[in-house]
């Protein structure tokens, strides 16, 4: 029996939603299932609605939800229309008497939509006609039971564990598995184990079906931020400078905590990349991480790194833009920004990863490319991958050799003209030289001579051509049918939703997933039939594909939420029925 579940746990930000989500993920992994968890939260420290969406039996998100564990009334209102017909709803008794208009933290827009659909009624009334399996728990009484040992305020923090324990138990996990998951989550799980006991005791007589054991594998459970951080450490990162920004900072802090890598908090993103470039010049393996607004500030340094030929890996965790946009929500809006970053002719490499495993692989690859070609490499990821948690192979991490500085320092020429454009690199401090942002000669001395200038610009471009040759085979992956009716082209975190949608549709579809977006690969032989681009922005990859090849339609995600399998299925069907532009709007 294939187990396939989609569930969410929702509550207020700061109410332990993340811990509850992670307990659930861990429990299903212990049971032997494939899992994928996505965290959606407000740009707020405490109070606003936040939820964790978990898929069991797949690596992409699906709607509708089979189960919702709602720690408050707002969670029920928020996800009401995302629930399947007979979904399991676990909630607090008290929530059911609540009206949307009584919830101060809820957005006006959502209140308006609820009022339009249902009127200003309490949940009890709204849910009367529905076939949901509602388990309304007397949360206050249950907490009181727990408070025999401690104050009510301190035990109220265990509400998340009560909810998730009841939920997991009713979904078919046994008590032993849930207990182990809780023990794995907290260093001191005492009160939470008691909370679990109380919650399960309360629901133990309800109807449930024990889930069968899956295939147990010894894997790591990681967020995208953690996966990239570990990959950087494993790649031999020496130096990391950063300026705090969502959703990049968690990666940096993980690396800082390791205590093995010089980590510096800069005064702004210009300085963050500037310091990393300085460290790289001095011979260290260096990187910085940021998001769209920070990368805007880094642009002048991207141009400098190209001109002065300094290796650097910039990990760009895209979030919802423009400007501050929605800081804690996802998007793929920085594709063109990355490719065209930096003023002037600025050859660079842009890599995009579709999931955690690819992100790990691409991190090592980014360092190799940056150091081999002495150029900036921008590694494109997004908030969806950053905070999503899934299982990763323990052997996925590569180690890289130290940078090679074997060139003779006598008569050293920093910008020596060579056949492939690559000049041997010696760090600052190993030879006399000039590293220069001005146009320069082979030594690095400033020059405005037209012949020197032409040579140097061609040298820098030649490096990218060389990179293009090296990368051609690895620039994209091809999945699905090779004699298809349509070809889908996409990049980044849309990957797994597209793969699953294709599997489900059972029609001949080819999927070209771009891994390298600069230098842009030659896709002329790959595009068969009508071409559909799927992306989480207003058409940036479509633009590139129009320039380089051709495109017949675009399916866009613009609501700053992750992409769901179901909406991809619908979008492909709509495209096959002749729609040129489809907007995918699922998610809350």
């Amino acid at each position, binding site marked *: 029996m294939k187990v396939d579940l989609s569930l969410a746990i929702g509550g207020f930000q700061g109410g332990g939603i993340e811990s509850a989500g992670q307990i659930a993920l861990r429990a299903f992994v212990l049971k032997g299932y494939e899992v994928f968890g996505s965290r959606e939260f407000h740009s707020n420290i405490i109070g606003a609605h936040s939820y964790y969406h978990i898929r069991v039996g797949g690596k992409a998100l699906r709607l509708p939800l089979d189960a919702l564990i709602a720690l408050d009334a707002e969670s029920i209102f928020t996800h009401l229309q995302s629930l399947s017909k007979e979904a399991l709803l676990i909630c607090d008794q008290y929530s059911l008497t609540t009206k949307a208009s009584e919830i101060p933290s809820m957005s006006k827009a959502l209140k308006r939509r609820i009022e339009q659909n249902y009127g200003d009624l309490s949940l009890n009334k709204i849910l009367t006609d529905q076939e949901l399996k509602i388990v309304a728990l007397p949360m206050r009484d249950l907490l009181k039971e727990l408070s025999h040992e401690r104050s009510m305020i301190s035990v109220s923090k265990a509400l998340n564990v009560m909810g998730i324990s009841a939920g997991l138990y009713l979904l078919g996990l046994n008590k032993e598995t849930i207990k182990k998951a809780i023990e794995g989550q907290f260093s001191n799980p005492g009160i939470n184990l008691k909370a679990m006991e109380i919650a399960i005791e309360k629901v133990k007589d309800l109807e449930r079906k024990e889930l069968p054991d899956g295939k147990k594998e010894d894997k790591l459970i990681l967020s995208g931020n953690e996966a990239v951080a570990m990959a950087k450490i494993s790649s031999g990162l*020496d*130096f990391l400078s950063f300026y705090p920004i969502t959703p990049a900072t968690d990666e940096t802090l993980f690396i800082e905590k390791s205590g093995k890598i010089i980590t510096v908090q800069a005064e702004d993103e210009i300085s963050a990349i*500037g310091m990393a470039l*300085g460290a790289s010049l001095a011979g260290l393996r260096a990187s910085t991480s940021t998001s769209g607004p920070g990368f805007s500030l880094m642009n002048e340094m991207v141009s400098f790194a190209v001109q002065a030929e300094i290796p650097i890996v910039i990990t760009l965790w895209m979030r919802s833009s423009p400007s501050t946009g929605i800081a804690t929500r996802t998007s793929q809006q920085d594709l063109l920004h990355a490719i065209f970053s930096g003023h002037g002719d600025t050859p660079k490499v842009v890599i995009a990863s579709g999931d955690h495993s690819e992100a790990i692989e691409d991190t090592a690859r980014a360092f190799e490319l940056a150091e081999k070609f002495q150029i900036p490499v921008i590694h494109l990821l997004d908030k969806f991958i950053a905070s999503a948690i899934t299982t990763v192979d323990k052997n996925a991490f590569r180690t890289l050799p130290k940078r090679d500085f074997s060139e003779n320092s006598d008569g050293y020429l920093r910008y020596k003209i060579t056949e492939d454009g690559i000049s041997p690199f010696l760090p600052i401090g190993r*030879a006399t*030289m000039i590293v*220069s*942002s001005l146009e320069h000669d082979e030594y690095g001395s400033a020059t405005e001579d037209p012949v020197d200038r032409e040579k140097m610009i061609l040298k820098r471009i030649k490096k990218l051509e060389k990179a293009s040759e090296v990368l051609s085979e690895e620039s994209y992956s091809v999945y699905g049918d090779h004699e298809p009716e349509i070809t889908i082209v996409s990049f980044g975190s849309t990957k797994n939703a597209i793969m699953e949608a294709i599997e489900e549709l059972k029609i001949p579809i080819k999927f070209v997933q771009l891994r390298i977006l600069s230098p842009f690969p030659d896709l002329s032989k790959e595009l068969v039939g009508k071409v559909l681009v799927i992306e989480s922005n207003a058409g940036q990859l479509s633009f590139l594909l129009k320039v380089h090849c051709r495109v017949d339609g675009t399916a866009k995600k613009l609501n700053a939420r992750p992409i769901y399998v179901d909406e991809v299925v619908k979008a492909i069907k709509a495209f096959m029925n002749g729609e040129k532009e489809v907007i995918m709007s699922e998610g809350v």
Partner: protein
Amino acid sequence: MKGFDYKTDAWIQWCPGCGNYGILTALRNAIAEVEIDPKKLVIVSGIGCSSRIVYYIRGSNVHTIHGRAIPVASGIKLANPDLMVIVAGGDGDLLGIGAGHFVALGRRNIDLKVLIHDNAVYGLTKGQAGPTLPSAVKLRAMNYPNSHEALNPLLLAFASGYTFIARAFAYHVKPLKDLIKEVLMHRGSAVIDILQPCVTYNDLMTRDWFEKRIYYLDSLPNESELLQKMKEVDRIPLGVFYKIEKETFDQKINSIMGRKNKGVRNV
């Protein structure tokens, strides 16, 4: 070694009589007297007339972009504490566009020596007001009198936490050389505000104008007179204003990372 050993074959493209020549000579002589291996000498500059100095002294130098010498120099120094890293830039570069980095360097106390070629104008773009130009002054290329107040580099350095703060005059080459030697021996963020007349665009703050106003401090000012000395504008004191020893940023990072500090004095 002699100052001559650090010369390069680049043609020097400053205007005849420019204060930068004095700084160049003083810096070359200072590093020669301290005998720094040119490979271990790292001059990092931003953009502007002064930033060209990286082409005129033999070293392992970096010419960065406008205002950003300090971040790049910080990365180099943290990566390799054995190097002698000097930052050179104008007042526009270091205190205008790069002011945030200037402040942050003071807060960090990284072992970098900052030389401000302070001429109060943007020379390469032909004479706009620089951050240290007094208010209401109209220089020859400006359309209107300066509507900004002048920034005091010494006070900003003090507020930011620099552990060595001095002022010098570009045409007094020997005292400047001695001061640079002292700064090279200091361990921590150090700054010398070097008054450097721009002979082409600053027709107010000329060599004569400065020579009528400058005088040398007899000794390191004590705490009670320090700020007053830094604030003086009618007469302009030169010399070392402030000097203390403090744990440097890389020492702190190393102790956080549980590593033994190399403790290398970088000359």
